[in-house]
């Protein structure tokens, strides 16, 4: 027998139920924290940076009904959706509300040639490739990714833009398809029976040969 004797103290009896409780609940807690806490739904959705000018999409795109492509004019031809130059604003504002203090920064930019520093809202990581034209031309509406921008005063991020979210649609694209002439009509809803809607989507998929890639290299090039 050694000189020292170790005996568990009485309170250590509590450790067993404690450990069991911990073992049973901690994994659930950890899964919850990771699945919700680290999800882009928590970290990214609702991102609404302050813009240099209080430009209202609700007014321009919603109330006045300016087509998305009037300002974001590259979406049908290019991967990138252009942010309009000051010139585009001035097309109208050279005549309308030309003295309003709200658009003072636009006039300043027009006079000095310094572009307006819009803050980017929808920002994909640099390692992922996204092409606007291939989506827009084959009937995926703006609303699928950007939400009802025509109702937003200031634009926020509506969707997660996570990889899983992209894959969701790449695995089952049909519900997001519509006639390409309707892509910028954010308020559009299919009018008819559920069965007809399914057929409508299937027909579009067939017509445009839509078979979205799930390969890594589709987006990570």
């Amino acid at each position, binding site marked *: 027998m*050694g000189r020292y004797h*170790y005996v568990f103290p009485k309170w*250590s009896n509590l450790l067993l139920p404690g450990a069991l409780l911990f073992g049973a609940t901690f994994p659930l807690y950890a899964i919850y924290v*990771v699945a919700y806490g680290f999800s882009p739904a928590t970290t990214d959705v609702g991102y609404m940076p302050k813009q240099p000018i209080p430009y209202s999409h609700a007014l321009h795109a919603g109330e006045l009904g300016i087509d998305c492509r009037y300002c974001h004019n590259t979406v049908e031809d290019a991967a990138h959706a252009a942010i309009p130059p000051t010139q585009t604003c001035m097309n109208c504002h050279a005549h309308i509300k030309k003295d309003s203090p709200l658009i003072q920064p636009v006039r300043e930019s027009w006079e000095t040639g310094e572009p307006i520093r819009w803050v980017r809202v929808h920002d994909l990581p640099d390692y992922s490739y996204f092409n606007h034209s291939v989506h827009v031309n084959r009937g995926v509406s703006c609303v699928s990714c950007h939400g009802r921008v025509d109702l937003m005063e200031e634009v926020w991020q509506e969707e997660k833009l*996570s*990889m*899983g*979210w992209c*894959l969701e649609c790449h695995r089952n694209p049909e519900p997001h398809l519509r006639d390409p002439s309707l892509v910028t009509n954010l308020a559009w809803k299919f009018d008819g029976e559920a069965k007809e809607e399914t057929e409508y989507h299937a027909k579009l998929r067939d017509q445009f040969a839509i078979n979205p890639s799930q390969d890594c290299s589709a987006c990570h090039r």
Partner: protein
Amino acid sequence: MKYESVWEGPGERLPLVDNHDSLGSVTKEVLRAAEVPKPPIGWFIGLGVASTLASCFGLLIGYLIFTGVGVWGNQNPVMWGFPIVNFVFWVGIGHAGTLISAILFLFRQKWRTAINRFAEAMTIFAVICAGTFPGIHVGRVWLAYWLFPIPNQMEMWPQFRSPLLWDVFAVSTYFTVSLLFWYLGMVPDLATMRDRANTKLKAFAYGFFSLGWRGSTRHWHRYERAYLLLAALATPLVLSVHSVVSFDFAVSQLPGWHTTIFPPYFVAGAVFGGFAMVVTLAVPARQIWGLKNFITMRHLENMNKIILLTGSIVGYAYSMEFFIAWYSQAPYEGFVFINRATGQHAWAYWIMIFCNVVSPQLFWFRKCRTSIPIMMFVVMCVNVGMWFERFVIVLSLEQDFLPASWAYFTPSWVDWAMMLCSFGLFFTLFLLFIRFLPVIAIAEIKTVMPQGDPHDPLGGADHHHDHGSAEGGQE
């Protein structure tokens, strides 16, 4: 009665523990390695060398992570170079531990008791070394958790059809079960060490890990139940883990790899290499720590018999591969094997044949099975040979389907250094184990001594009701 004879007449068995008249002296002798105030100088030298190598392993891994997997010699067409060779080599070594602890336990092979503890320790340390290689081979080690199917925002899952994923499950299950088995078996012995501790820290540490063991009948009852259940659980793992490792090759559609013989052949090879490593470790350990009374020549001889058996199975598998390559009349299959034996890496093939097939044949002779120098020669050959076996298999990648890309695989210095340093990690862990934990299952070995057998006069059998053989009974 000091002898190292291994002769067993019909119906008799040599004692499993030599030179012990009481149970108490067993405890003292086994724990000497852990209880001497100053371990022998050889231990310090060994630990010094091993831990230096282990530290270098860490530095090399840092260099690899910092620079990228290009520091290895892996290059088109041999994309799996040393990392997978080392992985399979170490996982294979780990197989003897479970075989001894689980299968030999279920078959009531009592001679396993002297060697099971450190064979299990060896298993765990070998699997640690093995797990390192695929872990750092993924390239971006910070994403190594992608190996596991964890729900994630990318909705990306591992490829469930890939044997590499099955490997992740097989090896991690194996590690977990081996660790539990090793630890569970150690609890009574840790309690012994707790009770014999001479410092407060030791008393606390051993006391903590012995989980309040008091040795009551209820404790023993539950302990033995749990041990039996774990043994039953671990038994299929002995066969499954290396089968799954062989799927890494067999499931891919490459000539020379895509064969049904791979799983049994790999399992036999793993047991073969594992036992060779147990003997490699047991011989010096019993010498240095004076464990010859427990790890007797009978134990070593038994292990050598298993080495002979499994070595012959491996030899059979090698020849069967050639036979099937000819019998199938598949030109590519035939080419691979002819090329192995006569091609640019023929030297590696013949080293493998000599070490794995020829050298164990010495064990047909009792003289060779019971001679320390000869058995050390053979097991060293097997250690080398089993490494080369995996090397030869992986290098059939050199001649792929496109002759324009054929190449000669040259390992880089990092390849060699990492292989060497993984031995450093292995031996560091092993030397620490020898110093701080009971190297032999003390409680268990007492049950195979006559003093532990209630039907034996030495174990206290009542000689009045005995059938006349109570002479010399200890009362």
